[in-house]
């Protein structure tokens, strides 16, 4: 009983940063509709800045001022980010802003590396709060008690701000009806900026507050992201009490899990999330999100046509060039091209889902990494011949996609996206923590192809065959009745359902098919590298695919492939530099700001403006 109480206190204390970061994210989303993936980065900056201030400012007063200062500074950084990066892209197609926030993640990662160095920083203890209190005989760190008190105070202050002040009224109005706010004569741009700043400050505060418990390191941006999304989803997007309750549930359960079931800590929160969402699809305090059919921002998507003879010819020439590559190029460029091809197939499979189906999956790495792990596990544990494992891998990924899709498709929009992300993280944590089977962090090694496929050239042709074949198949299906039905379900679910089209079934099949193709890419990957590690399943990998699809152009069939080539090509050049993330991040932000239609879409528009190609029907 005593231990129990002590653990609950620890859990509540741990909930405090999580809550601060989560409600910042929730607030930003509620008002601006931007899913700020860079929120973890702001949290990380809060920790580093807090640490830096604490080195300068002495004593207890210095400690607490540092935390406040960190919050304020990160708030200012958030305001800068909003004004420089997000403002130009509010008008861009929905979710395109995401890509800009990916860019911000990369930039902040390298800036943190440059400014604060690569070493993990051990957080300073809070002056005067070093010891423990005895609670029913059990030791509880004094700092935990303080956190326990601080969080509800911050929560109450926020609650007061939002429910009792004029600013709060505007924020709430904006959460519900953005047009109304501008009708009230409020400058929407500054409201957005202000809210973004406030949300960022909360993240910074969260980062600084946890310093005595966790310190600061360069991985904390991604590490906080998954729990924060889980908290926001469980609590219900935009709900403060929901975020608090969810943060408490997750943190307390986590403390118990560490004691009683240490293997389950990472997996546990996803299990909780799935349970909650099964009972309450929109989270504990969330309200149903009515997905607007006419909410599509930007230019409506154009009709698709099968490739013209000219394009077909060009494609054939291109494929021929690829096929003859072993003749005119060195073996290392074959290896590189193999990588690019695999990545393009992965991106194309996501594009199929996102572009045609309008289904924004944040967790597509689940199927790519999943396929790779299925193959690797089959080879390692069941001595499966490589050829068979290679074929079973996409099947396994496809089945996983069907199961995950079945759960996620009950929701729409951002909830759907968050849930897919959470499932990908669930797989990642399973692989990470189930070391006996998956090798955990050490991955699975020695997964080579059969003898006859081993030579670089032969494997290159295998990859070429499956990737080009796969991409052409995806394209072909886009033009089939099924592909049309998928677009119909995206354009107008109402009309599709009233003309007998089972939109949910169509979307589920598409999800499974995209998972299958992602798994195929994963299988090609694992046998080309000979090993697989959990990072093939992690958020960053899903983001890679998302960036590529958005940058290439969601609304153009070639978008996935074009983005894939562009991204891999640039990455190959940039990786030679020490601060490649910084350059890459800036580049992404530039493309987002300058070419909001994606690369292919913007090229096409440019060509139309110059009358190089005929614009149809505008």
């Amino acid at each position, binding site marked *: 009983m005593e231990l129990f109480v002590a653990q609950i206190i620890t859990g509540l204390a741990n909930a405090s940063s999580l809550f601060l970061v989560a409600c910042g994210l929730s607030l930003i989303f509620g008002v601006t509709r931007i899913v700020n993936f860079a929120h973890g980065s702001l949290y990380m900056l809060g920790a580093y800045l807090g640490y830096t201030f604490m080195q300068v400012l002495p004593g207890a007063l210095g400690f607490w001022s540092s935390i406040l200062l960190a919050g304020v500074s990160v708030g200012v950084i958030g305001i800068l980010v909003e004004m420089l990066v997000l403002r130009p892209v509010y008008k861009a197609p929905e979710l395109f802003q995401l890509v800009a926030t990916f860019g911000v993640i990369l930039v902040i990662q390298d800036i943190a590396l440059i400014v604060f160095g690569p070493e993990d920083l051990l957080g300073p203890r809070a002056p005067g709060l070093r010891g423990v209190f005895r609670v029913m005989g059990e030791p509880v760190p004094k700092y935990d008690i303080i956190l326990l008190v601080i969080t509800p105070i911050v929560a109450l202050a926020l609650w007061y701000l939002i429910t009792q002040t004029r600013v709060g009224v505007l924020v709430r109005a904006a959460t519900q009806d953005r047009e109304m706010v501008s009708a009230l004569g409020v400058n929407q741009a500054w409201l957005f900026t202000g809210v973004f700043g406030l949300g960022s400050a909360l993240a910074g505060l969260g980062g600084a507050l946890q310093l005595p418990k966790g310190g600061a390191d360069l991985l904390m941006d991604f590490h906080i992201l998954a729990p924060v999304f889980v908290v926001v989803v469980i609590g219900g997007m935009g709900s403060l009490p929901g975020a608090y309750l969810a943060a408490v549930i997750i943190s307390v359960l986590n403390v118990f899990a560490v004691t009683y079931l240490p293997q389950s800590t990472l997996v546990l929160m996803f299990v909780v999330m799935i349970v909650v969402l099964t009972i309450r699809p929109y989270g504990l305090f969330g309200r149903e999100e009515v997905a607007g*059919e006419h909410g*599509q921002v930007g230019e*409506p*998507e*154009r*009709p*698709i*046509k*099968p490739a013209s003879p000219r394009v077909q010819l060009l494609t054939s020439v291109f494929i021929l060039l690829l096929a003859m590559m072993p003749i005119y190029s060195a073996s290392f460029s074959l290896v590189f091209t193999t990588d690019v091809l695999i990545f393009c197939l992965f991106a194309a499979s996501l594009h199929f889902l996102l572009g045609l189906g309008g289904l924004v999956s944040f967790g597509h790495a689940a199927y790519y990494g999943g396929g790779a792990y299925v193959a690797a596990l089959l080879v390692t544990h069941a001595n499966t011949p490589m050829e068979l494992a290679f074929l079973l891998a996409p099947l396994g990924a496809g089945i996983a996609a069907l199961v995950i899709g079945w759960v996620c498709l009950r929701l729409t929009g951002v909830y759907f996206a968050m849930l897919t992300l959470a499932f990908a993280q669930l797989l990642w944590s399973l692989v990470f923590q189930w070391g006996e089977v998956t090798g955990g962090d050490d991955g699975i090694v020695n997964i080579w192809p059969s003898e006859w496929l081993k030579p670089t050239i032969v494997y290159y042709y295998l990859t070429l065959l499956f990737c080009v074949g796969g991409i052409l198949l995806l394209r*072909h*299906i886009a*033009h*089939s*009745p*099924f*592909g*049309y*039905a998928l*677009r*119909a379900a*995206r*354009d*107008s679910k*109402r*009309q*599709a*359902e*009233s*003309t*007998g*089209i*089972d939109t949910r079934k*169509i979307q589920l*099949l598409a999800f499974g098919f995209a998972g299958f193709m992602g798994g195929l890419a994963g299988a090609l990957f694992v046998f080309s590298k000979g090993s697989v590690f959990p990072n093939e399943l992690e958020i960053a990998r899903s983001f890679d695919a998302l960036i590529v699809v958005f940058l290439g152009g969601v609304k153009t069939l070639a978008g996935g492939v074009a983005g894939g080539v562009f991204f891999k090509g640039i990455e190959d050049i940039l990786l030679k530099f020490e601060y490649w993330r910084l350059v890459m991040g800036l580049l992404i932000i530039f493309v987002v700001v300058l070419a909001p239609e994606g690369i292919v879409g913007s090229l096409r528009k440019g060509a139309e403006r110059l009358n190089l190609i005929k614009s*149809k*029907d*505008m």
Partner: protein
Amino acid sequence: MNGVLKTERLTKTFGGLIAVDDVSLELQKGELLALIGPNGAGKSTCFNMLMGQLKATSGKVYLADEEITDLSPRQVWRKGVGRTFQITATYSSMTVIENVQMALLSHFGDILRFLPRAHLLHREEALKLLDLVGMADQADRHCAVLAYGDLKRIELAIALAHSPMLLLMDEPTAGMSPKERVDLMELTAKIVRDQGVSVLFTEHDMDVVFAHSHRIMVLNRGKLIAEGDAGEIRNNPLVQEVYLGGGTLFTSEVESHA
């Protein structure tokens, strides 16, 4: 009996609001029945319950003597009901003809085919339907660039794709010019005559209603308050009060919906 559609005490409440209150109506084969009423009377809510977009709070719906009360829109469509929406629902990324082809693909059970090229299938039938509604010359235009009235006509073509026995049209002429309205209603009357379809439609333009419907039912605050032919409705004091109260009997309210 040859009733195509029958509702029994159909009711829908939203929280405390009774949007549709105890509505029983019957539609004969080949009949063109207008359901009119001021804004918020419950007309669209009625339609949504008939087609299955909304679940009725209580009451029953029969299609040719078969109960369809709790069926999904998909199932109701399969039984031979087509509908158009007050706020048009078309596939904005497709061409005009592809919008109609979609419905035909569904009707002919082609949706789960992965190999053929969709835009080549059922093109002839789709063209015929477009011709019927006067959109054939715009068949290959991008749907997203069309005028609202054109979208309404595409919706009609879509709704006719599976040769329904019952057509539900929610404000079919909204956003059209007076001439287009007359054309569309004459077309509807022709479809009723030629194909034996029964039509239930709502409309705010009283000229259209009086000129083209066989029978009129008036809904106010969810309740049916009158029923009869054009002359009877025009002279019904209850109806006059409802409409003159709002002052809108003979003027069009349509623009408020576009």
